């Protein structure tokens, strides 16, 4: 009965028009003060805030369900297992995977990429093979491949981007070949906001027989993702960037590929039987989930995805695009501001530099006005090098941000520019 009421509530809410002030009531942290100013949280590409529904799910788990999963016969263990597996099913439906067991819970996108690099990469790469990434990858989609390349003798190839921050597909055509065995590409750049043409890249990779990993860390919270339609072989994301807890992430992989891969870590839960002579590994997804997992993390992620589905990713994308366009327009009022990353297809973040003001000074001064942005290289040093800047300031928006908050950002920036004149 309780479930039915809940679903009914979701239904009713969904029919209402998007109301940002209603949405903001769900996020307790948005109502606090920072340095005696109302918090304006523009660091959503680093991590998102959590709605009370997610916080309550986690509290409820520890208050009513806490137990280890998959092996207990007692009530709590079964209840916790069922919630955990339900979360897997929520993720599966959310990205339209074929099977629940194609969803592997990891610590985050970073661990998911490492899992593929070590398990798939080390097994399948050999000297003369090539791994293809892009110039705009996060360090977490560069370093694991460098490590696996140095172990296997494979070569890392990099597709460059142009000064707007768009991948140069002609260069991809020059680099991609039957030697290419793995293509690992970011869906949306965390420092430029570029939405990459992954459908095309996936098709070209498959043409030459390579498998494709899509880093969805910055797309899963902004765009509807359908892994079957995309036909990517792997898709990874972190829970905390989609309004869920930290320490939980997802590796999606096509079942037949995951089945062919050796385990990444050994331990409990990933085995069927163990003797000192021979260990038989468990089936998917457990083969890749050694040890007690982040149970409340997975359940919290499930709750976060439900929350996002309830608003609708199409509605979210539409509103966030309006925020992006508004911010880009308003920032043009300040001649000293230069936006880094001007791709035609862009997600809701603005990276910028300000003439004669270092990003760290901007970060400190905005913070005093209650505005949280990110300053630094955003774990994308090659991107900074491309534009010849040591760092940028980045304001990244979520559906709970408002146009008034952007006005405040512009006002504060104008003050800062004047101060440094």
């Amino acid at each position, binding site marked *: 009965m309780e479930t039915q009421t809940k679903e009914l509530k979701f239904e009713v809410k969904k029919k209402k028009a998007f109301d940002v002030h209603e949405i903001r009531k769900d996020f307790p942290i948005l109502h606090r003060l920072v340095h005696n100013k109302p918090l304006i949280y523009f660091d959503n590409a680093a991590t998102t805030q959590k709605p009370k529904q997610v916080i309550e799910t986690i509290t409820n788990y520890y208050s009513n369900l806490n137990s280890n999963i998959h092996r207990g016969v007692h009530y709590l263990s079964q209840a916790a297992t069922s919630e955990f597996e339900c979360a897997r099913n929520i993720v599966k439906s959310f990205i339209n995977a074929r099977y629940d067991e194609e969803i592997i819970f990891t610590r985050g996108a970073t661990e998911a990429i490492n899992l593929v690099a070590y398990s798939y990469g080390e097994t399948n790469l050999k000297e003369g093979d090539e791994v293809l990434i892009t110039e705009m990858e996060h360090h977490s989609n560069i370093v694991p491949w460098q490590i696996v390349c140095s172990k296997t003798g494979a070569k890392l190839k990099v597709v460059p981007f142009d000064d707007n921050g768009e991948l140069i597909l002609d260069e991809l055509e020059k680099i991609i070949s039957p030697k290419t065995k793995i293509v690992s590409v970011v869906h949306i750049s965390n420092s430029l906001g570029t939405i990459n043409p992954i459908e095309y890249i996936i098709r070209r990779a498959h043409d030459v027989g390579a498998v494709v990993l899509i880093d969805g860390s910055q797309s899963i919270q902004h765009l509807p993702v359908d892994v079957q339609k995309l036909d990517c072989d792997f898709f990874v994301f972190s829970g905390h960037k989609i309004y869920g807890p930290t320490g939980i992430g997802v590796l999606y992989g096509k079942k037949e590929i995951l089945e062919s891969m050796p385990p990444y870590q050994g331990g409990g839960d990933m085995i069927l039987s163990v003797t000192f002579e021979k260990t038989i590994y468990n089936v998917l997804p457990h083969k890749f989930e050694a040890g007690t997992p982040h149970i409340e993390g997975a359940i919290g992620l499930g709750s976060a995805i439900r929350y996002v589905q309830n608003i609708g990713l199409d509605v979210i994308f539409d509103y966030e695009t309006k925020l992006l366009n508004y911010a880009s327009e308003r920032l043009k009022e300040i001649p000293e501001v230069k936006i880094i990353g001007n791709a035609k297809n862009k997600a809701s973040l603005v990276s910028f530099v300000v003439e004669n*003001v270092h990003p*760290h*000074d901007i970060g*400190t001064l905005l913070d*005093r006005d209650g505005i949280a942005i990110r300053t630094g290289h955003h774990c994308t040093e090659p991107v900074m090098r491309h534009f010849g800047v040591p760092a940028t300031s980045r304001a990244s928006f979520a559906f709970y941000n408002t146009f008034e908050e952007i006005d405040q950002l512009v006002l504060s920036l104008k003050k800062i520019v004047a101060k440094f004149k």
Partner: protein
Amino acid sequence: MDEVDLLYQEMILDHNKNPRNFGELEDATHKAVGHNPLCGDHIEIFLKVKDGKVEDVKFKGVGCAISKASASIMTTVLKGKTLDEVKNLFEKFHNVITSKPDEPVNTEELGKLAVFAGVREFPVRVKCATLAWHTLIEAIEKKDSVLTVE
């Protein structure tokens, strides 16, 4: 004064905009490169020591207002000091900017450097204010070598 105005005082903004002793010193006896990988700050210190005293000092590099002003102001207070006096001054400077905001501090013997006392309200910015100094100390201790401080 608001804490942030204490951090970005007029003198700091001025030295950021018009850094003093900016450039290379061809006859440097000591030099070192300082690098803060977190924020991408990069500084080079050139030091000329004669008879145990600082005869000249210059710097170049990129960084935030705090790190640039710190380097610039540093170069204006070193000339004529013995190397021990330089180290001593850095220690006092370091003590002040890493002290807790409510702790009483003696900024009198810091002279011009007292302008950085506001940094202690911003623990994440302490490294910005000390980068030039750490690099200077490296230059003194690892004479004639260029190295990276991380």
